[in-house]
């Protein structure tokens, strides 16, 4: 009988379960003993977490972009594939772009199999990341609850939940009463403009400390000999025919035969240096935090219909994210109507927030793709690889993205998780339309 057979494993289950145990983390090892020892020495003996590396003449692989994805790629190149000479070049400071600007939400509840494969791969890596890197990334599986505000949205949600569960990923539907019980501060009054009619919850979803992710990868990568070169802006990609031979930077030429480009909002700019065109549009994405308050929300709430998502940081700030701005921009600031719209929705759903003051508000530039799915691909230029198009939702994929991108660069061919994300899908038409799952929450 068919039921006797083992459950057909999806591609996401080829990946590791709960991190990649046995990977080298950074040294010296952080532990309770190290803390006690340092306490005796008035904490004078802590070493810097990574070197301030200067560019060398030549590397095996150069990663452009020192954000989470770029650092993760460099780390897995060194740790998994044994590539010894790797450099990460970053025009600003480490993790200073979208890695430090996102709202830190992690989940893997996407509709299509291809998405389930990569986001669930990432989620499993998140589950073991603090151990893998010997660095506390404060990964907190507090659950991600997506709310529906109409019958139709609820029906569409039900379809998505079934698709997610078919891929072996946890997801469950909640009614308004269950939501009220799960999130006591939410307004479930059915007379408001966008009433809470139901929702679905991924309990394994949650948040992580975004800066710590960059720092943890940087520290562990540095320990394996990866050079992290900050304040180093790429000004050109030098080619010999259709082969990459190096990168021009404001700190001189660096020779290399493999370049991995992970620059989010500036992907089109770097691609143009090699006469490559990408289907991405750079848009501002905005978020804000309130003044810190006592704990009132122990999960993540998202609403696609009203373009709002909210969580509470460990510091007590309410972290709110908005939808993407409607026009292209590289300005790292958005327009006012977008957060205004998001705040009005937040206050209706959570009246308790109405008298909170906002502390900070910022924008980052995200590279949105026509099908709301990323591009992890080789290019026409031999030795030049792109990992971009994560749009509004790249943070959650950081470890999975870095892991499969490192594999692509090391072997010069995509593995089964990365293969569907090749650039040629915009010629074949094999798109991975995730607008429903990726449209808002990040």
């Amino acid at each position, binding site marked *: 009988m068919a039921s006797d057979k083992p459950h057909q494993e999806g591609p996401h289950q080829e990946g590791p379960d709960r991190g990649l145990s046995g990977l080298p983390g950074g040294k010296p090892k952080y532990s309770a003993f190290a803390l006690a020892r340092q306490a005796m020495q008035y904490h004078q003996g802590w070493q810097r977490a990574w070197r301030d590396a200067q560019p060398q003449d030549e590397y095996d692989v150069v990663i452009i972009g020192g954000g989470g994805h770029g650092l993760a790629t460099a780390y897995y190149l060194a740790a998994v594939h044994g590539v010894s000479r790797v450099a990460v070049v970053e025009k600003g400071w480490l993790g200073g772009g979208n890695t430090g600007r996102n709202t830190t939400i992690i989940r893997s509840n996407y509709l299509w199999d291809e998405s389930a494969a990569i986001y669930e791969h990432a989620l499993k890596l998140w589950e073991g990341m603090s151990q893998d890197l010997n660095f506390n990334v404060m990964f907190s599986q507090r659950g991600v609850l997506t709310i529906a505000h109409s019958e139709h949205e609820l029906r569409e949600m039900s379809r998505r939940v079934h698709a997610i569960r078919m891929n072996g990923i946890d997801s469950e539907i909640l009614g308004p009463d269950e939501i009220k019980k799960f999130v006591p501060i939410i307004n479930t009054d059915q007379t408001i403009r966008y009433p809470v009619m139901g929702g679905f919850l991924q309990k394994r979803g949650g948040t992580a400390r975004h800066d710590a992710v960059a720092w943890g990868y940087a520290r562990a990568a540095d320990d394996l000999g990866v050079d992290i070169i900050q304040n180093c802006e790429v000004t050109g990609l030098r080619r010999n025919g259709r082969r990459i031979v190096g990168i021009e930077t404001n700190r001189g030429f660096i020779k290399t035969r493999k370049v991995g480009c992970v620059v989010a909002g*500036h992907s*089109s*700019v770097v691609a143009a240096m090699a006469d490559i*065109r*990408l*289907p*991405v*549009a*750079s848009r501002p994405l905005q978020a804000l935090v309130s003044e810190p308050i006592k704990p009132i929300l122990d999960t993540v709430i998202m609403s696609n219909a009203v373009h709002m998502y909210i969580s509470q940081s460990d510091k007590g700030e309410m972290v709110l994210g908005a939808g993407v701005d*409607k*026009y*292209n*921009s*590289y*300005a790292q600031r958005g*327009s*006012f*109507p977008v957060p205004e719209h998001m705040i009005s929705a937040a206050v209706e759903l959570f009246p308790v927030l109405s008298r909170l003051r906002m502390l900070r508000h910022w924008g980052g530039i995200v590279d949105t793709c*026509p099908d709301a799915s990323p591009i992890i691909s080789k290019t026409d230029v031999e030795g030049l690889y792109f990992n971009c198009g994560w749009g509004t939702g790249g943070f959650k994929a950081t470890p999975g993205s870095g892991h499969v991108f490192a594999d692509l660069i090391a072997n010069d061919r995509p593995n089964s998780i990365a293969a569907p994300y090749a650039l040629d899908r*915009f*010629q*074949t*038409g094999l798109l991975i339309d995730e607008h429903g799952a990726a449209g808002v929450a990040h």
Partner: protein
Amino acid sequence: MLLITCPYCGPRDESEFSCGGEAHIARPLAENSLTDAEFADYLFLRDNPKGLFLERWRHAAGCRRWFNMARDTVTHEIVEIYPMGSGPASKAGKAAHAASWRRDTAAEAAAKPAPRKPRAKKDKAS
């Protein structure tokens, strides 16, 4: 926050407008002759410059009419607003139009009607 001067209604708040993305993308007329890669230039690939960008806007909560705008994506400065069906008039706008990779694509070449062939003279004898 942009203050956009609708060519029909005057200066209005950004929230009244919707943005239609890159301007001057002509649909290829003879698309069957294009390869998939060439057609993708028209269908999916969009110019994404850091600097002056020619784009379409619509006064969605006003007169609902479309127009073109030349706007800087770094400073958000609106250099020029000009009507649909025409090209930019400013020097910077013209330069941006000419510099776009789209001008060299097969999709754009296929969007123009083929040059009219001189009509063959009819044979009077037939």
